[in-house]
């Protein structure tokens, strides 16, 4: 359950919304809230993650501070989302580390860098670390093949397990209904199309009202991330199935996908950072802002270090850049289940629940029970 004070405050604010209902055309949150007269912690977790933070409801609300009703739904739900990430994060102790997201993430990256470089220097020596390498297997002459592969597998397994544990606990708390193919199909469509960043046609309230910048920038990051992921997969296939060792040529599938993905992530993350800095802070939660900036910074740095590594891979800087890139990836993986990265998991589950609820209420109103 979320913090009881937050639940009580959410109940107070939504009782204003439920008596008003002017915002119900913007997104799924308000129709979902109207279906409830009392709110349990799970309901708030559900509504909080159903919210895509377009902030149009804040812009449209005549009751925002300094009005005595002090309604600020985007801020309330963003704060609740940060609680979700911590509350459902597994293992809990690890999730709490991210109460200081920027320092926590930076510490993990620094620690990883020390371990990686330390291990590389200890096994191969300082001279090899700072020497240029070329030809197949060049990377593995700095960092041990076995250590890299096993480390990557371990990190991936841990990340997936942690996210799955969080997702299961979240699904249980919000009362996710049994599997329904139409609900999953609808939620999948809404997630990929970012339907609720459209503000019901009005766009987002960011650097200006009616903005579509965030949806565009988010698209860059999202599709860039998928391209980078595909690049990694392709690299794995070339290496482990075809037996071709990296570095791969410039016109190979892993490198092309990696470059496209890296540039897209870098552009999208930079765009989102600029957008965030230009947006009205009033409807935002300070804690979420820190999580956002932290995640965007790590993503941008991973992309940047990857691109630099590609550009300078035949020089003496390769060892250092690879170390930095890998350390940032470790930080990205380890913080993913508790930081902004995980938003899509909880949001997707909330979309599924909403799709299911919408189907149920539709059949009810078709039955004529609506007065």
């Amino acid at each position, binding site marked *: 359950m979320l913090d009881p004070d937050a639940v009580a405050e959410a109940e107070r604010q939504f009782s204003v919304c439920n008596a008003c209902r002017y915002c119900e055309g913007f997104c799924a949150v308000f129709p979902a809230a109207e279906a409830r007269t009392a709110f349990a912690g799970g309901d708030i977790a559900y509504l909080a993650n159903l919210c895509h933070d377009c902030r149009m409801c804040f812009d449209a609300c005549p009751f925002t501070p300094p*009005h005595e009703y002090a309604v600020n739904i985007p801020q309330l739900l963003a704060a609740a989302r940060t609680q979700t990430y911590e509350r459902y994060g597994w293992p809990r102790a690890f999730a709490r580390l991210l109460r200081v997201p920027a320092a926590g993430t930076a510490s993990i990256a620094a620690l990883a860098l020390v371990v990686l470089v330390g291990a590389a220097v200890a096994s191969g020596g300082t001279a090899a670390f700072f020497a240029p390498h070329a030809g197949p297997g060049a990377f593995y002459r700095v960092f041990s093949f076995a250590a890299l592969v096993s480390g990557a597998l371990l990190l991936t397994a841990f990340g997936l397990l942690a996210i799955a544990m969080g997702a299961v606990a979240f699904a249980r708390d919000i009362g996710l209904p049994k599997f329904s193919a139409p609900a999953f199909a609808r939620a999948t469509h809404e997630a990929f199309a970012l339907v609720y960043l459209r503000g019901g046609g009005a766009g987002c309230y960011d650097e200006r009202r009616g903005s579509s910048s965030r949806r565009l920038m988010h698209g860059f990051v999202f599709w860039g991330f998928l391209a980078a992921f595909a690049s990694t997969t392709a690299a794995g296939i070339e290496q482990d199935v075809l037996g071709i060792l990296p570095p791969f040529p410039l016109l190979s599938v892993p490198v092309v996908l990696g470059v496209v993905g890296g540039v897209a992530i870098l552009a999208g993350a930079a765009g989102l950072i600029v957008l965030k800095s230009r947006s009205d802070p009033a409807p935002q939660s300070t804690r979420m802002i820190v999580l956002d900036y932290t995640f965007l910074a790590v993503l941008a740095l991973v992309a940047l270090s990857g691109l630099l590594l590609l550009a300078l891979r035949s020089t003496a800087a390769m060892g250092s850049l690879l170390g930095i890139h890998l350390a940032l990836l470790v930080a990205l993986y380890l913080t993913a289940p508790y930081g902004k990265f995980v938003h899509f998991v909880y949001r997707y589950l909330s979309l599924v629940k909403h799709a299911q609820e919408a189907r149920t209420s539709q059949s009810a109103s078709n039955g004529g029970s609506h007065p």
Partner: protein
Amino acid sequence: MGPDVIVVGGGNAALAAAITARRAGADVLLLERAPLHMRGGNTRHTRDIRFAHDVPLPAAPGAYLVEEFFEDLIRVTGGATNRELAELTLRESMTLPAWMEAQGILWQRALTGTLHLSRTNLFFLGGGKQLVNAYYDTAARLGVRIRYDASVVALSNGGAHAGGTARDGGGTRVGGVVLDSGERIACRAVVAAAGGFEADVAWLKEYWGDAADNFVIRGTPHNTGLVLRALYALGAKPVGDPREFHATACDARAPRFDGGIVTRIDAIPFGIVVNARGERFYDEGEELWPKRYAIWGKLIAQQPQQTAFVMYDAKVHGRFIPSAFPALRAGSAGELAALMGLDASAVTATVAAYNAAIVSGGTFDPSALDDCATRGLTPPKSHWALPLDTPPFYGYAMRTGITFTYLGVEVTAGACVVSEGGTPFENLYAAGECMAGNILSRGYLAGFGLTIGTVFGRIAGKEAARHARS
């Protein structure tokens, strides 16, 4: 040199005037009394606009012909309307959706949720503040100069124009405006669109006495009628009954000002209403709620302490849109009465008499005039009369919540303000709540205030620009 046109006010009518005048080429200064976060007057609290249309639209299923619109207006006003201006408004209303879209307004689409799109009204996405925001963005983009915290307290006399006569005091011109700071701004034409006077409690007391202290003002605290007074001081001819206002039943816990729609009490047809003596005083089931909700503000104003109490029980709880504040709740009618500060025995007797008078065998149907009624009870409850017998019992204390006043100034079909002598001013125009009384002299039609405001705002803006640039 001052601007061509000064628009006094910052709500729907003012913005329609400013945008239209600017598009016609005038240099326009808009003076909004409120600070930025409160801009838009009572338009902030609106959500839909009434308009005539020959064919069904995606966002307004079914046609709504001018003739039917006119019949509705005659019905609610009892025929007390300026026919020429009314017909002009209804005819022009057909052009509103396209014009509004061109200023950046988006419509609410049909949902599977609670909003039932109306045949007669278009709902704008996000409600009135979003409309206000879109209009301000458009006005600023076009180059309208906008000043907030700019309160106009007087209109300066610009002297008689060439054709004016001193005898009837008519034909005078306005020279500019005076702000509360003492600043004077000269201009070629003025559009007054600054609302009514409902937020000036002292003014309300002139007609209502101390009872006005118990009224809630649902909208902006800035509608204190300063500009109305300035218009009268210049010699404008009043229109509309100053005693009249539109009011609904509001939660007694509502803020004194600006509580908006969320304090409205929609429970009345589902229960009974008693006054401070614990007695019923009006048929709660007279008509379908949308047709009757607007009479309850006035009914409550006529009760002791301008207060009334609605009571209902568990059978109907959750069947209507709730207030933003939770209902009082008790195990019996007597306990609920005590919670509401009423004499428990009087209320218990009222409930018993009501329950005993209900004709048995009725079928409850809140969507129609059903056959659940009382017999031999005064006043009766004609429909939806269910016994109050299923705990928990719920209740709200209610007060009169004023939405708007009807007092204004007379205008011509060109939105020109008419002087006491009957002659139009040369360069003074009015739009919105301060002239709506020409058309809607009493009664209520949902979304019609915005219709009048937009139609006359556009006319006033066009005429003011034409005059200023001629």
